[in-house]
């Protein structure tokens, strides 16, 4: 097992959960979500450990099909962002947010990345998301055809250029509705 595990337990105690060694020799450590950021910062900054390279950030939805355990939906899916430690986590965390709806606290720019900003069907990689999507094909086509060709820039991008204030009022209104026109179930 990786020597960092004992050091982690000595430093953080109960915040460190199970630690396993996979078949290929990789060490897997489970960390409670409250202690996550502290543990990560310690791992990166402590001499002798210095984990300065982040390979990947991802999420898995485990679901026990036989026992039908329903996870409490009201529990907030949120963890601390590690973008401040590893800049490479920026897009990776956005992808996890986009696909699973996990909120990363402290992420500087947490918005959808692979799906468009006004995507209203949910979080595609969750197990309760149907393979074909939530909307019917007809509805998806209708939205695609009704997309607003003038709204190629997001509000944020327009505000950088400071051109938004000078636009006519009707165009501002259309831009507020987003790239895909008005989404039926969003409001």
């Amino acid at each position: 097992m990786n020597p960092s595990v004992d050091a982690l337990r000595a430093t953080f105690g109960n915040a460190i959960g199970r630690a396993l060694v996979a078949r290929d020799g990789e060490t897997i450590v489970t960390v409670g979500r409250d202690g996550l950021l502290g543990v990560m910062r310690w791992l990166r900054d402590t001499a002798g450990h210095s984990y300065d390279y982040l390979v990947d950030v991802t999420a898995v939805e485990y679901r026990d099909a036989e026992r039908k355990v329903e996870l409490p939906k009201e529990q907030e899916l949120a963890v601390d962002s590690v973008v401040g430690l590893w800049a490479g986590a920026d897009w990776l965390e956005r992808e996890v947010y986009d696909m699973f709806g996990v909120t990363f606290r402290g992420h500087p720019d947490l918005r959808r990345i692979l799906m468009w900003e006004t995507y209203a069907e949910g979080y595609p990689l969750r197990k309760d998301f149907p393979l074909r999507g939530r909307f019917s094909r007809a509805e998806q086509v209708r939205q695609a055809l009704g997309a607003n060709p003038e709204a190629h820039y997001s509000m944020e991008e327009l505000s950088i250029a400071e051109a938004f204030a000078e636009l006519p009022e009707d165009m501002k209104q259309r831009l507020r509705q987003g790239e895909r026109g008005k989404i039926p179930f969003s409001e």
Partner: protein
Amino acid sequence: MSKRTVELELATPGLDAQGRPVRVPLTAGGTGEGDVAGRLEAQPGSEHMLINIGPQHPATHGVLRLVVELDGEVVVRCIPHVGYLHSGFEKLGEYRHYNQIIPLTDRTDYLSPMANNVGFALAAERLMGIAITPRCTVLRVIACEMSRVISHMVWLGTTAIDLGAFTPFLWAFQERERIYDLQEMWTGARLTTSVTRVGGMMADIPDAFVTGLRHFTETFPKTLYEIDRVLTRNAVWVGRTQNVGVLTREEAINHSLSGPMLRASGVAYDLRRDKPYLDYETYDFDVPVGEHGDVYDRYLVRLEECHQSNRILQQALARLPDGPVNVDDPRVILPSKSRAMSDMEAMIYHFKQVMEGVKAPVGEAYVGIENPKGELGTYLVSDGSAKPVRWRIRPPSFINLSSLPKMAAGHLLSDLIAINASVDIVMGEVDR
């Protein structure tokens, strides 16, 4: 030799002690004021312009859209928008048997399909605890290195076109065509190879393949030397790539870069050497490392990697052992068609595999392989059924691309094109 000297004088003040072109500080904008290490400071208070590049633009290498905030010609901010080619591969994988996922891996990084096939097969085999045969190991090395050659050739050709050089594009694509012919000979497909299976390969190589590949490895370096001669000391090329898009060693590590992008910044990290798979530790090859982390060093690293891939290909051909390609396990490998039609037991195995798929034990596995673009990770979580609970691709060009805003800030708009090209993205993999 004399001609070379002339080319060189146009480009740089001369050669340094190691025979490489001396770096000229980039003076963009003409004034030279506010020019810090090739980067320009935006003038506060001036009017900024917002321009949109892509998603349908030849210089974005696919359906990438860049929204750029400009101060004059200087990039103040660059906001990439990805997702135009999102196909939901990871979701789709959760509904498919392991062997049925392999065709999806072709379509992620479609410039190096064979290497993706190998990456997925290795992860599935680690999950199931399958040890592949010696011949299969060597064949997979050949598949990976062929992919590296074609991927780097596409990169070289398209990047050269972005910067105004057309000739290397034709040379590079000719070489790529020769590898494509070999891929077609082996798999029947040029692009969507699907060459691996869990526990082996889709097919053994045909008779003429070894001769064809050997001929390629003998003649390929000549093209590389020609490209080297046309580009490496070329005035335009050097001027447009040196000191452009610099990432320091620390920044490259912090941004989780991998592959040639990371090595160009001076980090000698190559999974083939540092976390060997497919017996790469037994091959003799070098890991080229840059020192400045700019577009020029990324070019040098990739060019040298082509030479090294060629060396590995030659060694692999020399050691290619005889023997079976697939493991001897009827639960994993389909019986031959004739056996399935004549032998009852083989037919049952055939039926069970086709209908139920290959079951993996409960657990998870992560395998990272050194793809042409960087570390291609495959993370599989299994609940014991024939379909994965989660199939995660660690996409190297997605993560490399996320450093683009950092690299582009402070450069000219035309340099943004060079920087974007140097990342070597393929949108099929960025968007998945």
